[in-house]
């Protein structure tokens, strides 16, 4: 199929949640993703936080979509099956000046409709967080955490099950407006669509420039993170944030527990030139540890098991203060082009609300008829790791591959790896497996499981050894055989 009602550029959390909302209607929808999986860009490289709405100015789109999205999250988690924990957040004040900032945040929050906000004394906070010392803190109970890749995958895979086409490793290289739609040129041929949704994240300007001179600029801003070993998960229970640094449009380096029990330190904020530069730097890794220790003096030095970075799509430069509102609208110059620009924090939270808004915009051009056979497939989210002994026994009887544990650190079984590789998006890299079943995310970082994942890919899925990728298209793991197995 080459002709669609809606073409979405980018399968990050924004593109995927839009695809899912659209999949409820009788429409032909296609998503173009240049990566080998969904959430290849910033959507997986963030703190995984569901924000409450205290950080965005009232009446801004950021505030509106954040609060709307926040309210949708629990129902979405229950129906789509992604993990969600309402662990709450403390914003810390170390002195009376910072207390003034907390009061500002509380006022903004209340105006935005955030409930349960409370300023607590340091000794009260210590009852719940014995390792944390502060003067006062703003307690935000409606802040939560998700696994951002699991979250995005849930939207995307459900959309795919409802007949949205996900074209992975497909990059949009040119666009042309035609009467009643667009020609979309990709490295895998030419497609057409009536409506075009620009959800290209950090590259949103590149997409616009294929059609017209953009009237905005993108300032990529890199955030680095450190992932700490689960062994330290008892150090904190809720998220810990500083008072937001002034004039930067970022939230500052904070501490985030993850769904699985790791701790994230980050993000840093560094404006860079190259939007693809996702390196981690020595300088920032040292700063992250230092800042982390300011909150939690007990934070050990050698607890890091991984580090990563993500690029924010900022629409204003550091000299301009770094803050702009979201742009979620049909382009004024090009009808039927819907632009999603500058979707940085609170992007994960805002995504489901933004998706509904996009559907609203599209409904003005296309008559939307709800599907009668819309499917909601809630994945068997229970991991072997979390099952009771009797649950484990039952599954092994049904399928013996539930009994072969191939990831020592996270107790992931062969069956889970096979199911991960059988995903409806047909994404089959080592990372695709990792993000769907956690194999490779433990403290040994793939030391034991890599051989098994490779074996399963080769034997069960007939992937040639030379074509096994880590994540991107050319990130091959191997070069072939030590001894060639020729057929003579």
């Amino acid at each position: 199929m080459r002709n669609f009602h809606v073409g979405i550029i980018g399968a990050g959390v924004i593109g995927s949640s839009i695809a899912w909302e659209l999949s409820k209607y009788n429409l032909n929808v296609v998503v173009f993703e240049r990566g080998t999986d969904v959430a290849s860009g910033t959507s997986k490289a963030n703190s995984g936080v569901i924000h409450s709405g205290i950080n965005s100015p009232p009446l801004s789109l950021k505030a509106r979509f954040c609060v709307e999205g926040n309210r949708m999250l629990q129902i979405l988690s229950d129906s789509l099956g992604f993990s969600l924990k309402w662990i709450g957040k403390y914003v810390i004040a170390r002195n009376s000046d910072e207390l003034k900032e907390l009061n500002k945040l509380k006022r903004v929050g209340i105006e935005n409709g955030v409930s349960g906000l409370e300023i607590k004394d340091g000794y009260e906070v210590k009852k719940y967080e014995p390792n944390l010392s502060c003067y006062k803190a703003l307690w935000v109970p409606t802040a939560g955490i998700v696994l951002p890749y699991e979250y995005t995958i849930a939207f995307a895979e459900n959309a795919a099950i409802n007949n949205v086409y996900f074209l992975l490793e497909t990059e949009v290289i040119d666009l042309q407006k035609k009467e009643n739609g667009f020609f979309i040129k990709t490295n895998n041929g030419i497609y057409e669509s009536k409506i075009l949704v620009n959800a290209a994240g950090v590259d949103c300007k590149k997409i616009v420039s294929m059609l017209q001179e953009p009237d905005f600029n993108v300032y990529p801003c890199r955030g680095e993170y450190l992932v700490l070993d689960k062994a330290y998960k008892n150090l904190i229970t809720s998220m810990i944030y500083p008072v937001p640094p002034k004039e930067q449009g970022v939230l500052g380096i904070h501490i985030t527990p993850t769904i699985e029990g790791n701790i994230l330190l980050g993000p840093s904020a560094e404006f860079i030139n190259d939007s693809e530069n996702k390196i981690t730097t020595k300088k920032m890794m040292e700063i992250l540890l230092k800042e982390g220790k300011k909150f939690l003096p007990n934070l050990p030095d050698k607890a890091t098991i991984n580090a990563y970075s993500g690029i924010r799509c900022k629409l204003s430069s550091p000299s301009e203060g770094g803050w702009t509102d979201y742009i979620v609208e049909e382009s004024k110059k090009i009808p039927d082009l819907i632009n999603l620009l500058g979707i940085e924090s609170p992007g994960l939270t805002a995504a489901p609300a933004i998706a509904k808004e996009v559907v609203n915009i599209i409904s003005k051009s296309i008559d939307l008829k709800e599907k009668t056979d819309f499917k909601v497939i809630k994945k068997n989210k229970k991991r072997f790791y979390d099952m009771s002994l009797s649950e484990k026994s039952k599954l092994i009887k049904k399928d013996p591959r539930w009994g072969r544990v191939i990831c020592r650190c996270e107790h992931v079984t062969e069956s889970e790896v096979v199911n991960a590789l059988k995903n409806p998006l047909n994404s089959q890299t080592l990372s695709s497996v990792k993000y769907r079943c956690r194999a490779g995310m433990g403290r040994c970082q793939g030391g034991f499981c890599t051989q098994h994942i490779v074996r399963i890919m080769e034997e069960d899925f007939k992937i040639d050894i030379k074509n096994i990728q880590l994540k991107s298209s050319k990130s091959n793991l191997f070069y072939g055989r030590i001894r060639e197995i020729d057929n003579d």
Partner: protein
Amino acid sequence: MTDEKQITCIVCPIGCKIFVKIDGKHFKICNGNKCVQGIDYAKSEALDPRRMLTSSVLVRNGDWPLVSVKSSKPVPKNKIFQVLKEIRKKKIEAPIKIGQIIIKDVANTKINIIATKTIKKL
């Protein structure tokens, strides 16, 4: 023609650096060794350096794709890559018994390449 060489002794972890002089087949220790075993090692290393070789041979229809192999005796250093070349070309059918000769008289060295693992037939 006299040749001077420095040999790192590997008999014990001290790793003495022993200086030797070789004149054809004549051998003379100059200095460096802290014990007597070092002399024997330095002599053999200077006049006739040999190495135990280990590698892998492709297996057909076995429960492993490769069988690990070793040379039955240390191989002259200057023949190592010839021996490895022959090992690389060899293909063997399972089952294989540990100790089985995989290649006889490899690269005309009179040394055999033997299996160091038992491979069952699939």
